[in-house]
Structure formats: C-alpha cells, structure tokens
C-alpha cells in the first residue's frame, strides 16, 4: 500500500514537473520577445557554450569519425562494398549519429554547467537578490542561456560532423588509399538536402532542450548545496532522455514529409 502510494506520488510529481516545465518554457517565450534584451549576456553565454565546447566537440567528432569508419570497414569489406564507405559514413554521421552524439556531449557539458550554475545561484539566494535589486533574473539568466544553447548547438553539430568526416577521410585515406578529394566528392554525391536540413533543424530543438532542462532544474533547485548536485545530475539525465525523444519525433516527422 505504501509502495502504491509512493508510486502515485511519483507519477503525480512527474506530471507536475512536466507542467512546471511547460510553464517555464512558456515564460521563456514570453520573456524572449519583451524588452530589455540582454545581448551582452547572450553573447557571453554563446561564447561559453560555443567556443568553450568546440574543443570537446572537435575531439569527440574526430574520434567518432575514425572509430565509426574503422568499425564499419571490415563488414563492408566482407561484402566487397568498401567503395560505399564515404556515402554510408556521411549519411550516418550527418543524419543521425553526429547530431545525437554531439548533443549528448553538450548535454553533459552545457546542461550540467547550467544546472549547477543556476542551482547554486538559487540556493545561495543570488536570484532572490537580483529580483530585489530590480533585475529580471529569468531574462538575464534563463532566456540568454536557453537562447545561446539553441543557437550554438547547430553550429557545434556542424563543426562536429565536419571533423568526424575528416576523421573518417583520414582512415579511408590510410587504409583504403582513397584521396580526400574523392572522399568528399562521394560524400557530397551521397548527401541530399533531405539529409542535411532535417538534421540541422532538429539540432535547434536539441539545443533548446539542453538549455531549457538545465535552466529549469537549476532555477527550481531546492534543499541547499545537495540540491545543486541533484539539479546538475538530473539536468543531464533528463536532457539525454529528452534528446532521444526529440530525435525520435524528428525522424518520424522527417519520414512523413521527406
């Protein structure tokens, strides 16, 4: 009976959280189009999320390209279809693996940092102090971060995809004697707009989800310093899950229209 009760409470709290997050996102859109606009903080957040994540994304992308090519190569060799490597790798990376892996990396890096940063501000009552001093903390802290994450993630994914393809091309060049020109010729021959546009559009949603969940968890964190850790952790977990859900919806919608 106690178990059922706790389950009921958990389900109720889950839906409450969903509801709160929905209100939170509505407030974001409302605040987004009202003055004053915090451009400086937005640019700062873009720099922190974009430039500071580039190295991580670059390394991840390069390793992703190299490993993916090395793992796929033997299977394709069995079928005598090594010539299809550039086409296959490029489509896989651009359509699916690149955006999802890089979004997950960013969820870990950006989502957790947002959750921790805002959570600590919440528990140390800095947000309350801002409200008292007449600054809109939601606009300054939340809107800028969500918007920066939404704008930067597509760029990070583009960089990540590009570096992953370079990594793949290096492996193909070394193992299969395929020149860079031939590799990228085959890549662009295989790719179509239906590959690149839906994949890029969904990364905006990924970025939005990372920013939204990170900010929400941080903004609503409670219970002192322990709450900060919980906010940071749950931001990453929820974001990762949400990313896969968004990806599923995106693929589903793309499949209907393209």
């Amino acid at each position, binding site marked *: 009976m106690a178990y059922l009760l706790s389950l009921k409470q958990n389900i109720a709290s889950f839906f409450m959280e969903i509801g709160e997050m929905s209100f939170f996102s509505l407030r974001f859109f409302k605040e987004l189009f009202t003055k004053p606009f915090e451009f400086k903080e937005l*640019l700062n957040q873009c720099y922190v999320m*974009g430039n500071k994540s580039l190295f991580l994304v670059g390394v991840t992308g390069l390793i992703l390209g190299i490993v993916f090519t090395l793992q796929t190569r033997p299977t394709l060799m069995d079928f005598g279809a090594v010539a299809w490597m550039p086409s296959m790798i490029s489509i896989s990376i651009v359509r699916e693996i690149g955006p999802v892996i890089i979004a997950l990396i960013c969820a870990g890096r950006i989502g957790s940092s947002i959750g921790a940063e805002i959570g600590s501000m919440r528990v140390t009552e800095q947000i309350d102090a801002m409200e008292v001093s007449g600054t809109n903390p939601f606009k300054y802290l939340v809107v800028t971060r969500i918007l920066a994450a939404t704008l930067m993630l597509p760029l990070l994914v583009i960089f990540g995809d590009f570096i992953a393809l370079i990594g793949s091309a290096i492996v193909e060049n070394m193992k299969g004697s395929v020149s860079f020109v031939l590799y990228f010729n085959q890549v662009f021959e295989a790719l*179509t707009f239906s590959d690149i546009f839906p994949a890029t559009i969904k990364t905006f949603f990924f970025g939005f989800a990372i920013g939204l969940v990170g900010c929400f968890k941080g903004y609503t964190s409670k219970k002192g310093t322990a709450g900060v850790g919980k906010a940071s952790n749950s931001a990453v977990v929820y974001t990762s899950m949400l990313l896969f859900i968004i990806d599923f919806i995106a693929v589903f919608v793309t499949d209907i229209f393209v």
Partner: protein
Amino acid sequence: MKKTNTQNLQLGIFVILGLLIFVIAVYYIGKQQNLFGNTTQISSVFKNVNGLQLGNNVRFSGVNVGTVKNISILNDTAICVDMIIQNKTLTLIKKNALATISSDGLVGSMIVNILPGEESASEHIQLGDTIKSISKIATADMLTTLNTTNENAALLTADLLKITNAINKGEGLLGALIKDETMATEIKQSISTLQLISKSALQTVTKLNKMIDAIDIKNSVAGVLLNDTISAKKMSFLIESLNQSAIEINEITANFNAFSKELKNNEGALNYVMNDTIFVNHLDSSMKNIDQATEKLNENMEALKHNFLFRRYFRKLERENAKDEKN
C-alpha cells in the same frame, strides 16, 4: 572590456566558420543535384524505368551531366522522365542521342545513360526536346534468360555424360579411337607413312627449287617478257595484230567455205563451166567459130576500106591520125 571584445571576436569567428561550413556543404550538395548553374530540361519516354527516382544521375557517355527532375506516367506503356542537363554539355548531346536506364554498379542506384546516336547529327538538343529511348535488359529479364541458359546447360551436361559414358565403353568412332588399340597402332602406322611421304615431298620440292634456281630467268625470253615493259607493249601490239589477222583470216575462210559450198551445190556459171563437159565442148566450138568469124570480118573490113563508098572516110581518118602525130 578587453576580455569581452576578445570573446566576441572568437565567437564571431566560431559562428562565421560554422555557417561557412554549412553553406559550402549546402552549395556542394545543390551542385551535385544541379540546382545551381545554367541547366536545360529535356525528356525521354520509357516503357519501364526500373525503379528510377527523382534526383538520380544522368550520364552522357559515363560523365555526370544532370539529374532526373520528374517522372510521370503518360499511359500504361509510356513513362516520361524529365531530366535537367548542364548547359555546358548541351552542345555535345545531339538530337539522335539515345537514353537508357541502367544500374550504377551491381547494388547501385539507377541512372539514366545518354548515348550518342549512331549517325552523326549536326543539331544538338534544345530546351524541351524529347530524345529516343532504348530499353536494356533488366535484372528480371536477365534472370529469366539465365534460367533458360541453366536448363539448356543441364540438358547439355546430360548429353555430355552419355557421350563420355559411350566413349568410356569404347562405342562409336571416338570410343574406338580412345579404346581400340589396333586402331591406335594403325593410326600410328598411317602417321609414320605420312611422315615418310611428307619427307619425300619435301625432297621433291627442294629439287624443284634447285631446278628453278638454275634457270637464268633474267636473260631468258620469259624474263624479258616478264620484266621489259617496252617488249611487253610490243608483244601486246603484236598479239593484237595477230588477233586482228586471225579475225580477218577467219572471215576469208568463211567466204571460201561459202564459195566451196556453192560450188558443191552445183549452182552458178562457174560450176556449170567446171562440171558440164558438153557445155565446155560447145563453148570450145563456139570459140573456134568466133575466131573464124573474126578473121572473116577482118577480111570484110579490108574489102570495105577499098570500096569506093567508104574509101573517103578511111582516108580522112588517116589524115587526122597523121595530124595528131605531128602535134
């Protein structure tokens, strides 16, 4: 402030680089699909497009020159395929070019291949032109043919098995050739005989060669005839003349033949003269009579000269003759 400026600069570079990569990728993908640049639309009508899709490549003699823009079903046996062709290659594709749908490799996507027409045409294709199509063997047709070939191969191998069995048993000529030892011995003997014959033939040919070598062809008549062009002309003229003479002699002989035939047929005066002895005797006596008559006529003429009636005339004749002799 300085830190913020550096941050903004780095952010700007980051954003511009990211957008640049995206734009370049979009440009190259668009270029592959011939969305940029000058293109012209042509079409071709096929019976079966074998799974051709929008955006599939169009190749001219193996080079990518365009993409498939639209596929529409006209009726139950005609499917119209609209293609976008790059303008720079348009002048190379003539109006009698042929379009065919084939597969890009064994597991590749379908492509439209434009082949140059057999006869050279001066006019190249233009916007909206429709080129003829030929249908290549599709995979299904190929498999059907392969099935027939397999069936035929099975029949052939069954027959071959029968033949090899028969040969192994020593049946038939081939079997006898392989199995029969007597025949093998005979064949061996025949071959050795043939060898002897060929040796003898070789010796004969060698001797003949020596004989031919011994003849001084250059200075012989045959040599002159063969090598001297002037003599050849003369010979040619001579032969022509001989030929002409032969024709004439032939004509003469023919005439003689006709003449002799007439003679034999007892017709004509000559024959009469030659064959009728009575007539000849008459003729002989007539001739004698004529001689006598002539003599008597001379006498008469002489008498006439002395006649007083004609004497004057004859004197006149003598005087005129004398005058002529003087002149």
